């Protein structure tokens, strides 16, 4: 009897493996192998057509010695500082508003989610028009002549504005799902005790939504560190502010595909992975201080 059961469970688990095989194989071929390959490349001098020679830490030495690399680090951090706190705050505000019983709530939810659905290339196109120095609607409204896209000091702010706008909807929808899990009875009890709406927000909503907020924060920070497509779309190659807007991933793209130095490009990627890893670890450690898992 016992043997029969184990045979059956073995055949069951075999079927399980067969069922997940497509995903696992895809993961191995498309994710794990390229990742290991990237580590290898970061220690090699790459030649065209996939050839390479192992060269030890040469790429890393070159990378740490390059001013461009540190500049890209600063740009990336600056971008994160601009987008993550403001983006999350606005997303939370939007989520709270969408959680109240206002007219056309579904409509507004769809509207805020729209940027997620629109192709990033189209988003960048439209925003480039808005920010255009000569004909842009923003400068026309402000009655100023601001070089939104070409001034080295402003360009990251410009990119941050677009990034925040693009992500609000997605973050808000995630936060909204967190908000909807909060039982109404807390609010009823609080209002009976005479708590104001603002007090309710800080003492009920915020702690109760903090697990979701934490997840959104981690995701948003990761994707902000990895920002590439937005900058690629917004900043033309002929833009004098290019080096002031270059993020780590953009530097990787340029080194790997424009200059053709995939070894150095891979080193930048590995650095970025390590960077994200450390940042995420710090967050997991820090969450103990503010994330509330008790319902």
């Amino acid at each position, binding site marked *: 009897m016992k043997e029969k059961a184990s045979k059956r469970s073995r055949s069951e688990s075999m079927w399980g493996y067969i069922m997940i095989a497509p995903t696992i194989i895809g993961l191995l071929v*498309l994710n794990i192998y*390229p990742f290991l390959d990237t580590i290898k490349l970061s220690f090699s001098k790459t030649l065209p057509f996939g050839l390479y020679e192992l060269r030890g830490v040469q790429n890393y030495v070159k990378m740490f010695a390059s001013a461009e690399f540190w500049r890209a680090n600063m740009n990336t951090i600056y971008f994160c500082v601009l987008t993550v706190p403001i983006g999350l705050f606005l997303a939370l505000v939007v989520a709270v508003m969408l959680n109240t019983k206002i007219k056309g709530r579904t409509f507004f939810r769809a509207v805020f989610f729209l940027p997620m659905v629109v192709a990033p290339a189209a988003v960048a196109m439209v925003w480039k028009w808005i920010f255009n120095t000569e004909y842009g609607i923003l400068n026309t409204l402000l009655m100023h002549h601001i070089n939104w896209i070409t001034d080295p000091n402003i360009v990251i702010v410009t990119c941050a504005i677009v990034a925040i706008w693009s992500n609000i909807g997605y973050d808000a929808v995630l936060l909204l799902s967190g908000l909807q899990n909060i039982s109404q009875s807390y609010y009823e009890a609080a209002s009976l005790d005479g708590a104001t709406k603002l007090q309710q927000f800080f003492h009920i909503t915020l702690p109760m939504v903090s697990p979701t907020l934490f997840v959104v924060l981690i995701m948003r920070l990761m994707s902000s560190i990895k920002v590439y497509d937005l900058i690629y779309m917004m900043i033309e190659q002929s833009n004098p502010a290019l080096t002031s807007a270059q993020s780590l991933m953009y530097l990787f793209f340029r080194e790997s595909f424009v200059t053709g130095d995939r070894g150095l490009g891979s080193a930048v990627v590995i650095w970025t992975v390590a960077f994200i890893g450390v940042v995420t670890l710090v967050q997991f450690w820090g969450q103990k201080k503010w994330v509330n898992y008790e319902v």
Partner: protein
Amino acid sequence: MKKLKKAVLLLAVCLIATLIGGCGSGASADGKTHLTFQIWDVNQRDGMQAMCDAYTAQHPDVVIEVQVTSWDEYWTKLEATAISNQMPDIFWMHTNEILKYADYGKIADLTDLYDDVDPGFYQEHFSEVSLKNIQGSDGRYYGVPKDKDTIGLVYNKEMFDQAGVAYPDESWTWDDLCEASQKIYDATGYYGYMAYGDDQLGYWNFVYQNGGSILADNGINGGFNLPATQDAMRFYIDLQKNNWCPDQNYFAETSPGTAFFSGQGAMFFEGDWNILSEMQNYPNMIGKWDVAVLPKCPNPANGDGRASISNGLCYATSPTGKHYETVKDVLRFFGSEEGQRIQGESGAAIPAYIGLEDTWVGVFDQFDYRLNVECFVDMFDYGVQSVNNKFRPTWKPDVSDALLKIYSGQISFEDGMNIMQQAVDEAALED
């Protein structure tokens, strides 16, 4: 991102594999030889198709499929197919990349292609610049010349009329260019000559007109430390300091071509390969603009002050392709007078074949308003080969960055020149 890189490469390989696997497996169902022909310019598809049709009419056992991939994806895709040894049977090759492909044996040495027909074929029918553009680092020919181009001055006739300035002609110098720009700006408020941070369509022309050069004579080191080069570059960069020239910030958002055809400026440099499509795409502007030869340098450090950067594409093939012999025959046809004539008459580009330039010029007879496109052909007399060496992919981004920083005032002109010089020199050292 790191995943994306590999994934895209892999996907491209799979894609090409299915494409080629589907039709390249020797004798296919219909018993014909199926060849693929990869290009990047959709405007030239019809011309290329016409050329292929002419060949297949003579050789019914061959079918050639023209495939277009945009320039941005073209090189990633081609490299992926080269790695997996599944390159298209025939493809366009650009001077940017030819040295890399040739030096790594990824494209076939075609020096002997015409030996059975006419051993002196290349030298007889193609210019020296054209032949330089198909050479690998070893000096052998790795492609069949396809076309050749020059850079010309495009100008807005209406603005010249309004300002009462005579149209540009052969006698024009840099001084005339500036003077006319000033007058046009003063009279109309529109920009004059729009000088922007570009090499082939910008400062390279000025540098060679002044007798300078971007690379030293050995073709390895930079020429940015030469006084003639520096003088020309200073002149060119400083053009943006004039009130009649927009600054680089402007050009980062609006290309000179866009500015010109929306009536914002009076002049810019343009390659001949864009003229036909501009004629077709801006019907409102027909009759209001024309082209002229580039203005010359009034007091060159050496030479006669004339130059126009001349580049050229070629047809190439893989040395390990399955249908190598058939492909060679097709390439022979593409390089022949007949093949090149069809290309020229389609308006695709100026044929590389000497004596057929008029076929391209003739295409412009279809318009009631005839541009003076002959000037592009005239400039082949003093065309300068587009700047290239094996290390160009490495130094080019650094040189462009430095140029942009000079424009934005982040570094001084002298520092910028030093950075450019270093970038070129060090690229060669790193190898």
